[in-house]
């Protein structure tokens, strides 16, 4: 049995841990609201962009001169997995889930005989990927210097990816991130970003003679990188909201667990204190009786 002093120290230590998790939970809750608002505010742009892309892509014929972002490289050999994770921990299984999804995909692609490379966004996924696929991380895009990844970062990532596909470093790119469902549920999601996946449903929408200025090809060429940026930006925002949501839930659990632990320890502490007092009393009484 631990001594009273040890128990007391233990309780104090758990209490201070609880203070930290509680603070982190409240910070995450505040950040979550902001992140969620940002994610929602970005939706009109993304949906508009998607509509326009779909109607344009259906009008332009794909030939060998088409942009690689639209047509791909004509091969399916090398797959680049863009894995977006967070820079900070204390968010439960959030990062682990995204990486797990990426590993599943990687295993599937490897089994099919494709080559797999990784492009890491955020710090937390790197150690795991490094362990399982040493030497296959093409690049790490550092987002830890900014508070929350924004459009500028998305733009830089998109430019990077475009340059890499032009160099022929990969043929197909998939983006992994945590889609925000609610503060409790974050869904690891995979999305093909290069070449772009055009949804069939959206095409038939804008019929009629539309004037293009300049012509379709040129507009499309201008839009493709922007569309890629928008998709990455959307993913980063979702990821940020998910991270905060996961963090909030994880920290809430941790706070509750710490509370339980404190209760149990307090009971043990009180019992041993009483036992000590009783022993002392018995000793005194026994001593008095002996006289």
């Amino acid at each position: 049995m631990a001594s009273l002093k040890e128990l007391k120290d233990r309780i104090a230590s758990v209490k201070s841990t609880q203070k930290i998790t509680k603070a982190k939970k409240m910070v995450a809750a505040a950040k979550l609201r902001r992140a969620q608002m940002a994610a929602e505010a970005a939706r009109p742009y993304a949906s508009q962009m998607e509509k326009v892309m779909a109607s344009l892509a259906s009008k332009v014929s794909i030939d060998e001169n088409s942009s690689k972002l639209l047509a791909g490289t004509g091969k399916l050999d090398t797959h680049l997995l863009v894995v977006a994770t967070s820079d900070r921990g204390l968010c439960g299984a959030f990062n682990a889930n995204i990486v797990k999804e990426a590993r599943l995909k990687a295993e599937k692609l490897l089994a099919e005989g494709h080559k797999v490379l990784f492009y890491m966004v955020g710090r937390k996924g790197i150690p795991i990927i490094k362990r399982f696929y040493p030497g296959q991380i093409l690049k790490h895009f550092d987002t830890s210097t900014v508070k929350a990844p924004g459009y500028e970062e998305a733009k830089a990532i998109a430019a990077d990816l475009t340059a890499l596909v032009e160099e022929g470093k990969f043929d197909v790119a998939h983006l992994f991130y945590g889609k925000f469902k609610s503060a409790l549920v974050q869904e690891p999601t995979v999305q093909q970003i290069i070449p772009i996946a055009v949804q069939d449903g959206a095409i038939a929408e804008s019929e009629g003679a539309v004037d293009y200025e300049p012509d379709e090809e040129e507009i499309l060429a201008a839009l493709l990188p922007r569309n890629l940026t928008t998709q990455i930006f959307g993913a980063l925002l979702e990821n940020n909201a998910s991270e905060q949501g996961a963090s909030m839930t994880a920290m809430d659990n941790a706070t509750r667990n710490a509370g339980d632990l404190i209760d149990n320890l307090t009971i043990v502490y009180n019992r041993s204190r009483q036992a000590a007092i009783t022993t002392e009393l018995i000793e005194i009484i026994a001593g008095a009786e002996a006289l």
Partner: protein
Amino acid sequence: MANLHFELVTPEKLVRSDDVFMVVVPGTEGDFGVLANHAPVMSTIRDADLVIYATEGGAPETISVRGGFAEVNDKGLTVLAEAIS
């Protein structure tokens, strides 16, 4: 005369969504004014000022936009800009 429905969207948010009289869009191949019931057009835009006339003959309001494109369809004018200032 019916008003033109005008939306200005950036990646961060929906900046404007109003009914206005006319908007002059700085297209890549030249500025063009969009009134209500304009024929469908899609154009990329230069880094320049959007000029918005809320009412006919009223004082114009300018918003400078960077990188993007404008689309006119039967619902109105939508300008997607990368950044505004």
